[in-house]
């Protein structure tokens, strides 16, 4: 009788541990395969040996002469594709963690990282940058700056409305304020697109709003990488608070959690993280909504396991979506936001039909 619980515990830990290992290996394999896929297809063995040689070279352990591989292959493997794959990893993890945290904050299974109006706010900023040339002072970074400022403005606005007056920070008020701001933002974007006389610009806008990893370069990576690692890392430590948040404000208070203050802090952090990702790659939908649900089917609502699983799962999902976006049509690249919907939607529906998971309902 006394031993039973401990055995049970070990068994559970083990299956969670095997899930984590499975996801980590999955992420590594996906990344390597992803570097191999593309217009020029490179076998995974060659990918690994070139990267390995490069690492040894960087660490000054062994220098392998360049002529071992074709120079073009080495450039693709070392310079062109990895930033993109790393960006997919970073953004996938960031969106999935944001979604997980947002669903806990508002205790609503429909929440996603863009709930504070971030996607439509950033669209307004990016569209203004593309079509009207606002933010042209920032040169090539104009679109990113516009998107980030738009996201920031929208989320600050939603935040202020939600936390003002009666029903201070109530989740319903937050959701409604987010919807209202999103509607305003979308209308502004549509207005700008409708009145523009710039066919190429309009295509750029639509491409941007559907998200793209095309422009990922080594130079672009450090900011999103650092932000996602730091913010995501912070949220990994917050599992107890996130669990208690799901119980609601009153229960959280009686368990010693200052939920009003923490809710604000978490919201600001997720908004910043999402805003920075959106500024770099546009709005990629669906990842932040479905990955937390998919992972909850395996780990339950326990954030100690859910948050890391969501981060890994989000990365893997986005890497494969990117592979699909690059290879599905020859010579044309699909916007990744289209792919996340095409792959993610049916997969999600399939899980809804087959798994016993309530999606936060009764």
């Amino acid at each position, binding site marked *: 009788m006394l031993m039973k*619980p401990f055995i049970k515990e070990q068994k559970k830990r083990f299956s969670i541990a095997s899930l984590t290992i499975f996801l980590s290996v999955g992420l590594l394999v996906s990344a390597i395969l992803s570097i191999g896929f593309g217009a020029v297809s490179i076998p995974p063995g060659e990918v690994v040996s070139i990267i390995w040689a490069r690492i040894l070279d960087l660490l000054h352990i062994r220098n392998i002469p360049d002529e071992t591989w074709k120079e073009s292959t080495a450039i693709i493997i070392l310079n062109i594709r990895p930033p993109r794959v790393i960006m997919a990893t970073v953004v996938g993890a960031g969106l999935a963690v944001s979604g997980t945290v947002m669903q806990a904050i508002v205790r609503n299974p429909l929440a996603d990282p863009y709930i504070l109006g971030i996607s439509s706010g950033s669209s307004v900023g990016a569209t203004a940058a593309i079509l009207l040339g606002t933010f042209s002072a920032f040169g090539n970074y104009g679109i990113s700056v516009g998107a980030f400022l738009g996201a920031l403005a929208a989320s600050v606005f939603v935040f202020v409305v939600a936390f003002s007056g009666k029903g201070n920070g109530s989740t319903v008020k937050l959701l409604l304020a987010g919807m209202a701001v999103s509607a305003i933002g979308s209308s502004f974007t549509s207005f700008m697109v409708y009145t523009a006389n710039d066919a190429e610009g309009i295509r750029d806008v639509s491409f941007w709003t559907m998200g793209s990893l095309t422009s990922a370069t080594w130079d672009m990576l450090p900011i999103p990488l650092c932000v996602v690692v730091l913010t995501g890392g912070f949220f990994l*430590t917050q599992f*107890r608070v996130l*669990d208690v948040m799901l119980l609601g404000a009153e229960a959280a*208070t*009686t368990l*010693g959690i200052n939920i009003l203050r923490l809710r604000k802090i978490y919201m600001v952090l997720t908004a910043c993280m999402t805003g920075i990702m959106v500024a770099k790659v546009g709005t990629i939908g669906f990842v932040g909504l479905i990955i937390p649900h998919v992972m909850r089917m395996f780990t*339950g609502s326990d954030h100690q396991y859910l948050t890391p699983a969501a981060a890994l799962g989000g990365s893997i999902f986005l890497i494969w979506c990117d592979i699909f976006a690059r290879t599905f049509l020859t010579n044309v690249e699909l916007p990744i936001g289209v792919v996340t919907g095409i792959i993610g939607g049916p997969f999600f529906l399939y899980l809804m039909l087959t798994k016993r998971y309530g999606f936060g309902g*009764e």
Partner: protein
Amino acid sequence: MELSVQNIEVSIGAKHIVRGVSLRASEKQLVGIIGPNGSGKSSLLKAVYRVLKPQAGMVHLNETDISTLSLRETAQKLGVMSQINEFSFDFTVEKMVRMGRTPYKHLMEADSTEDTKLVEDAMEQTGIDALRDRNYSTLSGGEKQRVLIARTLTQQTPCIILDEPTNHLDIKYQLQLMNIVRSLKRTVLAAIHDLNIAAMYCDYLYALKDGLIAGEGKPGDLLTEAFIRDIYEVEAKVVFDNCGRQYIHYVSCLS
């Protein structure tokens, strides 16, 4: 630990719900608050456990003014079992009970074997051992109630507040729960709607009506036929058996 409440006033909007209530639960006493629906029992308790901010008044735990403590410190001294809350994501019963350890945990700190033992003990004590792997949302009202009690026990606080703890319970579990509460030897302040339960278990009672204390005393002294008529507008017969136990029979409604 002694819990004392001085001149608490609570208003929600323009409505004065609690209008200056003082009461005291001494060390290891089980003190009940009775009163009809809408008399302000829940609001008073919410002000004590810091979910509502009182407009006036103070709450002390021994000599400490509770408003000078952090919520975390409060949660280490004062455990609360409130009415069942619904939420959209699910936890297993065991996980729910485990969350009672939250006020003692730092970032990233794993649960110790001591925590596990407390969780096991609480689940055994409340008879929910067999439900440990069930999802909370699939439980019946009474089972949920017992899970919440187990969570409060796991919190290991010297002082406990119960808001209508026997609400959804079968009579067996009502008595079992009150036996557990009494056996804890902690300071307990409980809002109770069942006068027989109050009479059976409480050391002392406060009766609340329209946000004011309408009477206080030991159950045998306070719960007279006249007083029940006055407070609840119900005609009742109060009888005592040979062992001095008090029983309240309801005869008719006055209005």
